[in-house]
């Protein structure tokens, strides 16, 4: 559609969230829930895989890999059981979409699981949910119990002969378990450490069996595609980044929250919907898709938030976790805190990530406190050079992102810390209660 057309919000997964009973089977069914499953079970599994391929749905967990293609990688001749694993370990800083989705509408996830498991011919699915969200776990377990009682899960679903068990599995506090192979190790009862790829999970995943690992939002998007069709899905988004997704605005905005919109919407449009930057302040920097995606500035307000455009502008769409910081925020402090996080969450398996993050914490700390030197910036970039592309998994790459991008856009601010012998910012002004201009 032409660029003069206004981009609007397109609530699909959040469409029923204002019903107080949205999380119940009854509430979900009254808004058309489980009709997609009924339809899917009349189709051939391979036809469903083709449908999802044709829709262009790309993984909503950050990497953006085409979901249908992932399903298509399962080897046809492997006699082992197949598993579907839902990655509900939402932990990327800034990312806060799957948790409210599962709290408000766990059944759309379960319906997506049932359809997806049928499509990939799996009879056992796991939801690996982070442990630090008790009420989400309650809602998931409640929904699973309701679905079993209604014959939507279990043996011979809807009389079709299709069997599916779903297990809700709580994690125990490890960001790295959001990485799909670390998640699988964790689900097998080990320390959550990433595996060398290949083999990819499609070939040797859970218990070395063919396994599909998909994000919550990806799987939850499947029922709407089955119901409404490929044309409907591709009527939203861009050619290569089809469909809709949650854009999660947090930080110094007037109305932070979940905005479900076509991919390709811009931050300028989203900010307009969210009432702008908080009163009396202006945008300084933001993350397009969580802390592992290089930061953007006000130069990027009109960058379409789709996989290609964000990539071309030097960052990544990631999880569409838009953490927004105004001019009261010290970028050195922000980046330093993220690196403390990566250092804490590094699993320790590979040297570049384990050591690189450990040392970057030290360097950033002295820079923030005014005890650093300008040479420390080269030191940071040198460490990043040994981290980016050299770590075992994407955690290491993610850690390099905020460091490199912040030095690119705010080099002078680092130097100000050095020259002034301390942080030039009053941190109280960036708090919710200290921001009155």
């Amino acid at each position, binding site marked *: 559609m032409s*660029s003069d057309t206004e981009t*609007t919000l397109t609530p699909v997964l959040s469409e029923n969230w204002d019903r107080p009973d949205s999380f119940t089977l009854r509430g979900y069914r009254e808004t058309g829930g489980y009709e997609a499953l009924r339809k899917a079970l009349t189709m051939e599994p391979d036809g469903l895989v083709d449908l999802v391929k044709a829709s262009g749905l790309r993984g909503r967990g950050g990497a953006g890999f085409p979901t249908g293609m992932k399903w298509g990688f399962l080897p046809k001749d492997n006699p082992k059981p197949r598993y579907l694993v839902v990655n509900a370990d939402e932990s990327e800083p800034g990312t806060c979409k799957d948790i409210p989705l599962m709290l408000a509408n766990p059944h759309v996830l379960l319906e997506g699981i049932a359809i997806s498991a049928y499509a990939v011919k799996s009879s056992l699915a796991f939801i690996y949910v982070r442990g630090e969200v008790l009420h989400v776990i309650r809602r998931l377990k*409640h929904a699973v119990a309701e679905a079993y009682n209604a014959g939507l899960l279990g043996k011979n679903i809807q009389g079709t002969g299709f069997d599916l068990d779903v297990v809700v599995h709580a994690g125990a*506090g490890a960001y790295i378990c959001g990485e799909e192979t670390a998640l699988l190790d964790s689900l097998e009862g080990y320390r959550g450490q990433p595996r060398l790829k290949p083999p990819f999970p499609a070939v040797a995943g859970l218990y070395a069996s063919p396994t599909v690992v998909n994000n919550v939002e990806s799987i939850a998007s499947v029922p709407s595609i089955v119901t409404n069709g490929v044309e409907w899905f591709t009527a939203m988004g861009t050619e290569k980044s089809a469909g809709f997704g949650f854009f999660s605005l947090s*930080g110094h905005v007037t109305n932070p*929250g979940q905005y479900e919109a076509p991919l390709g919407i811009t931050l300028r449009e989203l900010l307009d919907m969210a009432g702008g930057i908080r009163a009396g302040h202006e945008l300084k920097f933001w993350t397009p898709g969580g802390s592992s995606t290089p930061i953007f500035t006000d130069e990027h307000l009109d960058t379409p938030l789709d996989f290609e455009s964000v990539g071309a502008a030097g960052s990544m769409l990631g999880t569409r976790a838009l953490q927004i910081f105004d001019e009261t925020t010290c970028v050195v402090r922000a980046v330093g805190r993220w690196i403390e996080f990566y250092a804490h969450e590094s699993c320790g398996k590979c040297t570049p990530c384990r050591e690189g993050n450990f040392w970057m914490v030290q360097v950033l700390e002295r820079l923030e406190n005014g005890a650093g030197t300008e040479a420390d910036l080269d030191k940071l970039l040198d460490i990043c050079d040994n981290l980016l592309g050299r770590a075992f998994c994407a955690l290491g790459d993610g850690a390099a992102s905020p460091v490199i991008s912040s030095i690119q856009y705010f080099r002078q601010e680092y130097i100000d810390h050095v020259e002034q012998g301390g942080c030039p910012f009053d941190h109280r002004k960036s708090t919710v209660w200290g921001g009155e201009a």
Partner: protein
Amino acid sequence: MSRTGTFPEEVEARLALDAKEIIARYPHSRSALLPLLHLVQAEEGYVSSAGIAFCAEQLDLTKAEVTAVATFYTMYKRRPAGQYHVGVCTNTLCAVMGGDEIFESLKEHLGVGNDEVTEDGKVSLEHVECNAACDFAPVVMVNWEFFDNQTPESAKQLVDDLRLGKDVKPSRGPESVCTWKQAARLLAGFADDRATEGPQAAGPSLVGLELARKRGWAAPDPDNLPTAPAADEGEGGTK
């Protein structure tokens, strides 16, 4: 309990029944290790050497194998946590929005440091990483229930109420907070009956939907789709 390195017989017998149920959920028994660690934490409030020995016994693993896993995950505590475990998010977004001030004021107010318990055993304090509620920043968790949009004052009131034994109500959760041990039991996979309590969604979770309703915005009508542009010139604009 833990001094002897094993649970008393009756505890072991009771937990063994739970363990059997947990193990039955999985095609391979070792997958039960994380839930079993939650189970023993539910018994004692932390993972003791007796808890480690129990898990090892149930899964035919060595204690070293179990310990290696238990120490990897931050939710397993190796010392007793408080009856109410308070986690303050100090990852960047929450820290900037006021999480750092909240954490500092709670340390001072409670007289404890990070990962320490008050003398009465009621409250333990920890700074936590991003808990996926950034649009509700600054966020505080109590026994892994959400307390959204906190301030230093509200957080101090919260821990005072917890120490006085008053019921406190999470922003998005059940009517009251269960104990640390009860929370661990839920994590082991034994549901309580509180799933239907509390709101389905709140505040920031609904702002986009409310705006769409107000402006009459919706996803396209599948029966009346906009006609595709005659030639998509590949400009990459939104459709």
